[in-house]
């Protein structure tokens, strides 16, 4: 084309809008445009609630981590088992995830009035009202769900998407299936280590094998509770985490010495709720998990003797410890304890007892090896070798240092016969956003377009259509 000639007005007339992929999890909610390699928007699923000027205000997004507010309490619309409990708030949180970074508050075409000579009278009022109410009216939406999502919840989801957000097309996909797609596999055994759950999902030819889906609550939050148990039992003194917001300054102290920090105090009526403190403690704990916690690499359990006869614990004790400093300045080197925190994911007996923990002691059936075993028991015998050769590891908590090594050893011991192959993306974001990325791939495929549930079909058949179409 000739760049010296001006183009015709509105040369581009198409509206090739790419679909939005929304992957709601217990700890974070991911949203982004299909076809991209990472979700543009990542927000905590937690939201804050506080009162200001007599009004209840809600806080969404990362702000809950950054700004303490008077009387702030933290909530999560999703239950520990990964199923939505508070639909109204789930809708708000999800909506925030795509509005904040993707579609903007006014969807539709906010630029119409700027570009075209629309006569001034017809514009603002009506249009804005409509578009603000229906934030997705021009984007197809692909959402993910856990493999054990009940039919009611699925119907409710499509209802929100169609009626509240006005999406023109919708699809609901199992997160396990998508994680397999993200690894380029149509058949796989997906092991997803999330914040509130770990799940094992067998997938064959892109279809979920429902009878084989297993899940248990030993996710990242459980590991946090184990770390807390370690802190409580710590010697010389128990460790308490004081989040940054309660500290105004700290002074460097030697390892193991009591902290010397200046604390903040809030008047009782303004102090943030305990749930806020718990959220921020969790943040310190995730730093702890990143920097200190390590999975005993195996091949045998931490409690077992090693091949050389020395107990594994002794071996672990001899590895150099890792230091960690808490927000109040207290710091300490963690030795064998850092292996113990996650051991119970593989060995229920290794759980550190803590009567105050919100998590009951794990049963053997909840550990990863048992989940895999139970999952495989639920699928056709002929499929098992194929699944074991395509084990896909995903989920943020699987990033624990040494996790996949150990998993591999456990699986090989348990299934000595067939070939076991564990696939785990090395890239942090591909591991954390596995199911989102799978959704991004799926929704950008041309062939997928026939699978969408269109608005018209929804209106014809009602929400129940999701059961028929999204298997």
């Amino acid at each position, binding site marked *: 084309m000739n*760049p010296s000639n001006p183009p015709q007005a509105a040369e*581009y007339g198409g509206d*090739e809008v790419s679909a939005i992929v929304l992957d709601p999890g217990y700890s974070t909610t991911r949203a982004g445009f299909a076809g991209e390699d990472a979700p543009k928007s990542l927000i905590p699923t937690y939201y804050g609630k506080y009162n200001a000027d007599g009004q209840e205000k809600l806080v969404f997004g990362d702000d809950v981590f950054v700004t303490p507010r008077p009387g702030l309490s933290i909530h999560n619309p999703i239950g520990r088992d990964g199923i939505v409990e508070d639909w109204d708030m789930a809708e708000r949180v999800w909506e925030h995830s795509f509005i904040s970074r993707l579609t903007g508050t006014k969807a539709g075409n906010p*630029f119409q*009035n700027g570009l075209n000579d629309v006569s001034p009278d017809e514009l603002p009022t009506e249009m804005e009202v409509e578009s603000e109410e229906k934030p997705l009216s021009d984007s197809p939406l692909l959402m993910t769900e856990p493999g054990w999502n009940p039919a009611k919840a699925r119907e409710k989801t499509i209802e929100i998407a169609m009626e509240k957000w006005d999406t023109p097309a919708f699809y609901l996909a199992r997160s396990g299936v998508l994680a397999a797609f993200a690894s380029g596999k149509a058949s796989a055994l997906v092991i997803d280590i999330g914040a509130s759950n770990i799940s094992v999902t067998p997938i064959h030819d892109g279809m979920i094998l429902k009878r084989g889906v297993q899940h248990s609550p030993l996710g990242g939050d459980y590991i946090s509770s184990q770390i807390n148990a370690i802190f409580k039992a710590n010697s010389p003194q128990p460790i308490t985490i004081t989040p940054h917001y309660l500290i*105004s*300054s*700290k002074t460097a102290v030697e390892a193991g010495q009591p902290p010397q920090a200046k604390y903040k105090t809030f008047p009782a009526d303004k102090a943030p709720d305990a749930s806020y403190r718990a959220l921020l403690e969790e943040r310190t704990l995730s730093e702890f998990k990143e920097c200190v916690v390590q999975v005993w690499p195996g091949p045998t359990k931490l409690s077992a003797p090693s091949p050389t006869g020395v107990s594994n614990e002794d071996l672990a004790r001899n590895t150099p410890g890792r230091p960690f400093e808490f927000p109040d300045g207290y*710091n300490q080197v963690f030795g064998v304890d850092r292996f113990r925190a996650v051991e119970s994911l593989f060995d229920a007996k290794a759980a550190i007892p803590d009567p105050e923990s919100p998590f009951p002691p794990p049963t053997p059936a909840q550990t990863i090896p048992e989940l895999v075993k139970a999952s495989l028991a639920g699928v056709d015998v002929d499929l098992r070798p194929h699944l074991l050769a395509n084990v896909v590891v995903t989920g943020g908590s699987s990033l624990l240092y040494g996790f996949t090594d150990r998993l591999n050893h456990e699986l090989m011991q348990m299934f000595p016969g067939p070939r076991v192959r564990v696939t785990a993306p090395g890239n942090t974001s591909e591991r*954390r956003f596995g199911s989102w990325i799978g959704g991004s791939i799926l929704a950008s495929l041309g062939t997928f377009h026939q699978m969408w549930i269109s608005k018209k079909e929804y209106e014809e058949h009602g929400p129940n259509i999701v059961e028929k179409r999204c298997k």
Partner: protein
Amino acid sequence: MGRKRNQRKSSHRGAPLSSHHSSQRSSLPPITMPPFKDEHILLIAPGSQMTLAQLGLPETFTPARFRFPTRMFPAEKKGEYEPYRVHERRQEIKVNNRTDTPKPDVEMKDTEAAAAESTPATGTPAKTDENVQNDVESTKTVEEVFYEEDLASDEGAIYPIANGRIVDWPCFFALLTHIYNTLSPPFHTPILLIGQPVWSARDREAITQFVFEKFKAPAFSLMDSALAACYGYGTATATVVDVGKGKVDVTAVTDFAVNEHGRGIALEGCGGDAMTDRLVELLGPKGFTREMCEQLKRSNITEILPPGTPLPGSSATARQSTNPAAAASTGGLDGDESAPRGPGDGTQTGIEGDNGDEDEGVLDVAAIVSGNPTEYLANVEKEKTSSKKGAVDPKGARLPNSKKEKASFQFEEFVQLEGEKATAHGARQYIRHTRDIEVSVERFLLTSPRSKVGNRLTGGILEDIATQIHHTILAVPDATKRSELWDSLIIVGCGSKVKGFTQALLATITQKFILSPSATIFTSEIPSNFTTPLPTGANTPAPMGQPGPMYHPAAHGVNPLLVAATHNNPGMPGTPSMDPSMVSHYRSTGHSQTPTSVKTLKLPEYFPDFKDQGNSNAPGASSGSAGGNPGASGTSQGGHGMEEAVFLGAQMAAKVVFVIDQGLSKGYMSRVEYNESGPSAIHEYIL
């Protein structure tokens, strides 16, 4: 529609090119897409207060040549906008009386250094109205309607951008059009627009569509402001803190890629306005207006002292060793002098006056925090005050500003002449009044937490920003980059111009987040790269050849392993324990905590023009006088004087993207691509 487009395109593609090439080059743009030239590049950097713009890249990069206040005024016809306030005046006049609109006799509010250049140009549109009006009615002696531009007034102005967000699209587009028309670039002008972090994907598409369809640009690039700041500093990895008028953005950039997750976007209540608000809260009862506080904030007597520094005049110059933030956090603090909390955590915005200090940037924060802050600062101050103009009170002339209990600044205001003289000419006239106003220690308290605001519990804006930085850096998935991010703070934005902002922010971070040595001393197991700067060339200025983000990071000397870690494609079939991707996994988890240190980046020293812009306290002078600190402050101060590094970066990026790279690495979107894929394709090109 697609077919039609294609036809047209192909016919052009097939056209013979060579014959026109040489003959037309001088007068017309040639027919193929010729390389873009330096002088034909349009840069626009919109901000909530001021929009910077420039046509063409100069030999050596300079601060933006044009500054447009980011506001428009509704024109008479609904949906249209004028750059200046136009008001209508009816008057009985005799024939042919040319309107005589004397320009206000003072420098205009918002046009600063560039006033001279921009004013005549921007004035034109409305002028035409006048002329037309005159021509039409010149034969009669009737009531005549004058439309006059009131250059100084911002009454009724619409600000299309608030806290970085575009709140009024038609107005924003009108502003872009106004800027475009004012600079009137030739057709073959690629456009680089600096985007605010808060703009959503749809916003960016809307802007893309507008630029291509309205301006018919041959090429367009939309660059994130944080990334532009990195270009300005010539670094691939940095934490960019952009302190604006009403908001602060905190962005971690690694290997020229913006980390969207955990990014602090448009934190409200942390920008320059928040500091002014605090001053108003403190001084309002003493009769200060907001405008006074605004000017006070920008004056050179206002300063943010690092947390823990005693306020002058507070009983005892005794060091106040307790952390002011602690006191502040109780929420019950009012700006009462008897209990000086120390300026604790303040972020300030505003122009700093002139401190002739050569290297404030290398202020050793450790010395402030752990050593003897007062003394140290005093020394620094001593140098600074030497060249002070307005603020010296005779008695204390020798004392550094931070030691003086009281100081005065020159308040400037425009007063409209209301008398007959003014109305006779039919134009508003203004006169500039200046007077000295004395302020007490409140001038150090502008970042202390406000007492009235009920919805946050933090100890002031510095602490908010520090917390956000901590959050943002922790959210960077590549843990090995974090310590480098802590050591590469870039502080930009006019809000950071208040004296002492950078130092106070660093001090706040230090006392809240820096790890004690004993927490890191045992890290023997895995080599940490804490103090060993990675060979990223972070501090090596590489102006022209600076590879853009479109280059594979390996191209500029990043540790190849790191590249493998971050860009590894996991598609490889897993051999579990030996899986090569596991290597990277080990790398990222076997890491230690951060930060062990925090530093600002030094900015490149080879752009002298960025160092000395004039300063003034004039109202509205906010952004222009950026470089406020004459001389070297810009060089070494890591924040002061270089708050417009974003624009410098925009020029560098434009050079790289449009001239050097020529689109090979998808640095910009061409019109051909726009026609094929539509506005949403801009996301593939966004820098």
